[in-house]
């Protein structure tokens, strides 16, 4: 390459970089009342019931005929976060910790409402695992991601029972809930901490509970449905409608276990493989609570900061809430 061509080549590279950065803003569009497209990113499991019903009833599609509504299932809160950062999705549902990580790193997302709270179990097959003390360095524990709620609860439990929050870090394996179930049953991992309906199936296959998450942080930490502050500001009425729809569906699910169980059994977003009766009994379980108020935001943030996973703690839960739930959480 001759000397004269160098500046040309470099300017080309810079140009390409600039252009590629501009390609991402898909639905920034006009400032009408509703966006041209809206993607909802959620995770498999019992907590997806609200979204499955909302999707099946096509409520949003009817309310906003000009908006292209899309549904995406991903495996972890980290993946939800990435979808929102890259603007592949706008509404996300995820656990408290991955939400806090995003907030800590400067994402402008806030809580639209909470979804549901349930008790998750650390399940092992081998009877030699009775407490956390029984896990040796090679006994792997499956969680969906190292920043998932289960992983944080496990660290807190390690701190309480083993005296060191990082005592089990070497044991953690990031693995999707369904894959983790397989891995546990085939003996590739020693234990798995996921949620419903996976944990019930693991128990049915001979597993036993080593740890209840509700015993660690107390009855807080419901899943969150989040939206970016800027999106809310741009489409306030649209956002409020989405909020109201979700509240309605949540109430519906809470009061209509049979119909919800039917929807779950028919949808792969439920985590797969279950009869209507099985899902109904899961929904009937009193430890599953549908609630719209976020909880445990400050408690989780305080713990996560204390072990160096995030750098700041919100002054109050209100700092993390959109007007829909403003001032109600903790």
């Amino acid at each position, binding site marked *: 390459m001759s000397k004269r061509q160098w500046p040309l080549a*470099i300017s080309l*590279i*810079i140009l390409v*970089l*600039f252009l590629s*950065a501009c390609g991402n803003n898909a639905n920034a569009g006009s400032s009408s009342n509703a966006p041209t497209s809206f993607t909802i990113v959620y995770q498999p499991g019992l907590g997806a019931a609200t979204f499955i019903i909302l999707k099946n009833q096509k409520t949003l599609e009817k309310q906003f005929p000009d908006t292209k509504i899309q549904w995406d299932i991903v495996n972890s809160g*980290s993946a939800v*976060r*990435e979808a929102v*950062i*890259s603007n592949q999705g706008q509404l996300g549902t995820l656990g408290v910790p991955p939400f806090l*990580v*995003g907030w*800590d*790193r*400067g*994402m402008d997302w806030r809580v639209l409402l909470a979804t549901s709270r349930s008790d998750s179990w650390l399940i092992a097959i081998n009877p030699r695992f009775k407490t956390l003390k029984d896990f040796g360095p*090679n006994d*792997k524990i499956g*969680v969906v*991601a*190292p*920043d998932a709620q289960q*992983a944080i609860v496990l660290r807190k439990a390690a701190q309480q029972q083993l005296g060191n929050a*990082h005592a089990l*870090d*070497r*044991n*953690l*394996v*990031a*693995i999707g809930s369904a894959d983790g179930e397989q*891995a546990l049953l*085939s*003996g*590739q*991992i020693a234990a798995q901490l996921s949620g419903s309906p996976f944990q019930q199936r693991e128990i049915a296959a001979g597993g036993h509970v080593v740890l209840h998450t509700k015993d660690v942080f107390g009855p807080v930490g419901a899943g969150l449905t989040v939206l970016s502050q800027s999106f809310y500001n741009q489409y306030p009425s649209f956002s409020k409608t989405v909020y109201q729809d979700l509240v309605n569906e949540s109430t519906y699910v809470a009061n209509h276990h049979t119909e919800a169980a039917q929807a779950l059994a028919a949808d792969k977003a439920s985590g797969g493989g279950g009869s209507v009766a099985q899902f109904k009994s899961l929904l009937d379980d009193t430890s599953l609570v549908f609630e719209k108020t976020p909880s445990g935001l400050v408690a989780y943030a305080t713990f996560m900061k204390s072990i160096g*996973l995030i750098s700041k703690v919100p002054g109050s839960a209100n700092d993390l809430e959109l007007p829909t739930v403003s001032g109600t959480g903790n």
Partner: protein
Amino acid sequence: MSVPLFRTAEKRTFTFPGWLRYILIGAIFLIAWQLYVSLSGVSQLLIASPLATLQALIADFANGQLPSAILVSLQNLAIGMGIGIVTGLILASLSTFSRFGRDLLTVLTAVFSPLPGIAILPLTMLWFGLSSSAIIFVVVFGSVWPISANTDTGFRTIGTTTRMVALNLGLTRLQTVRDIFLPAALPHILSGLRLAWAFGWRTVVGAEIVFGVAGSNGGLGWYINNARYFLNPPAIFAGLVVISLLGVLLDTLFQFIEQQTIVKWGMKQAQ
């Protein structure tokens, strides 16, 4: 660039020495990168600036995360390659000395070498569980074929005269392989090793990511993946920089080994 057959007595304009040109290109790239991040307004969550990357590098070197990740990855690579080299050399020797060995190598190479290492990872995870043995096995699997096939070619192309000298000296089989065949086939063996390590390095990092071993004993793939989980793009970039630099370093090591052996012995032209 073409090299003139005869150098005319033209007045040559001043040119920078090679290393300075490389550094200049690197510097221009870094400046462009920094300017792009600072001026384009791109989200810092999508692209980390060189400065942020450098900070992450320094911080994670200081707190021991990167050194331990590097160690784990290099260890996986070294153990895998070590086993791969020994197995490859044994297969090539068998192939040279017996008809059966030759057929065996032909069939095994034909069947297995087209398989990408990552593709057999799910299988090794079943066999070995989520341990580094699974990663090491994949590296062994990937390095055996290029090494044995190249070594075999190397052994086969050893000149008749060299073979006859070995016979004339009355060497034992072991002496023949160790003292004659290995050095004589070294150019081929080294190019096999080069293929093997480039493959192995990519595999180790890739497997560590697929593995998603979330503990603090993961390698560089784990480090990057973990940075992803904790939304830390500077650390992701730092991990990539380290992987790339280690690649350059290992390649330099190879060039050094070649320089000290086959180039010095006149079996390969210096570049």
